[in-house]
């Protein structure tokens, strides 16, 4: 029965026709009107803990589990290019995940569009990246955003096909840049979708705590044709909080955790990184 329901949902997803193709307008950016000190001071250990509250949000996970194969594990050693993201929207603190990228300004964190901007709506505040965060420990410090960017389709309409975001973080108190301190991943665009992905993230919704980094390792399982261009799906049981975590192939990020279906568990979708994402990366690296 579960298999049949899964198949029906998959067929439903596959059967949705796409909207007309969109042009590729430039990225949208906003300088953060907060100092580095202000953001770093805001994120006390208590606030970080409370951004992953014990009381779980209600709902979700009602549907059948998809049968796409994956393995999920906590890495023995955390690559500090990956980290946890904290931000505030309308007075509520949220968490996501992100990746430090090789870039001209050595300061770009790659994440999901919905981890920087409401889509459509405002950019978030108190935006901070904590590389290799682990159970409250911040071995490489807290990095405050000075500029937030997302794609025009996310900024104007919340289009999950373009759910990519970036933050340009300030140097730390010692004047070092982010990638000087934590290293970086590369990024690639317009690559074949059929890949073996390592999806990184900090899942915080039940049954996870948000304190640890996990990796889902999986081949591309399906495309969501209800999005244009179709987003990519892999088997993965990471929950809320993992959004924005990089899908790595070799040393390059090829997508980010974006969304799941409430009525189809254990599948994570991410945008296909094409020209629009490339424009966003270029804008971030020169900000």
């Amino acid at each position, binding site marked *: 029965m579960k298999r049949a329901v899964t198949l029906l*949902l998959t067929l*439903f*997803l596959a*059967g*949705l*026709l796409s*909207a007309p193709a969109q042009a590729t307008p430039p990225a949208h950016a906003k300088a953060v009107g907060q100092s580095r000190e202000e953001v770093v001071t805001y994120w006390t250990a208590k606030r970080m803990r409370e*951004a*992953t*509250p014990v009381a779980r*949000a*209600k*709902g*979700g996970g*009602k549907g059948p589990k998809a049968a796409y194969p994956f393995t999920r594990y906590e890495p023995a050693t955390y690559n500090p290019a990956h980290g946890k993201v904290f931000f505030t*929207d309308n007075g*509520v603190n*949220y*968490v*996501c995940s992100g990746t430090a990228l090789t870039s001209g300004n050595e300061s770009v964190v790659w994440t*999901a569009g*919905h*981890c920087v901007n*409401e*889509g*459509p*709506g405002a950019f978030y505040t108190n935006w901070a990246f904590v590389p290799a965060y682990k159970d409250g420990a911040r071995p490489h410090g807290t990095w405050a955003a000075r500029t937030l960017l997302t794609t025009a389709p996310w900024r104007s*309409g*919340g289009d*999950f096909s373009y*759910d990519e975001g970036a933050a340009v973080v300030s140097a730390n108190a010692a004047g070092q840049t982010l990638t000087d301190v934590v290293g970086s991943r590369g990024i690639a665009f317009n690559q074949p979708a059929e890949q073996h992905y390592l999806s990184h*993230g900090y*899942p*915080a*919704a039940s049954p996870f705590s*948000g304190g640890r980094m996990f990796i889902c390792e999986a081949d591309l399982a399906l495309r969501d044709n*209800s999005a244009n261009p179709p987003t990519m799906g892999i088997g993965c049981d*990471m*929950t*809320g*909080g*993992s*959004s*924005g975590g990089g899908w790595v192939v070799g040393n390059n990020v090829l997508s980010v*955790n*974006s*969304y*799941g*279906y*409430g*009525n189809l568990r254990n599948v*994570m*979708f991410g945008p296909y990184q094409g020209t629009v994402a490339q424009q966003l990366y270029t804008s971030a690296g020169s900000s």
Partner: protein
Amino acid sequence: MIVRSPEPGGRVPPGGALRVAFKVEPGHEVLAARLLVDGQDVTDASGQRVAGTFPPSRVELVYSPPGGWSPGAHEAAVVLAPGAAPEAWTFTVS
């Protein structure tokens, strides 16, 4: 914040999808919203996309009727929480 596609008074092709996205208020039931088309509850036949923040911040319902839309005017409505007033709008299939 509710994003509707097509927008009120807008057009969708017979094979197109109806999409409605909205913000989830903290502590609210993530999958509580209901989507109605021409008076019929189509929520369970819709894709329910949930953005992967924590706590949940955004849900999007995507619906395309089996066999496609019939041409003409249609009414959609979304009820964000039990007991809430429906947000209704009309669109045209052509």
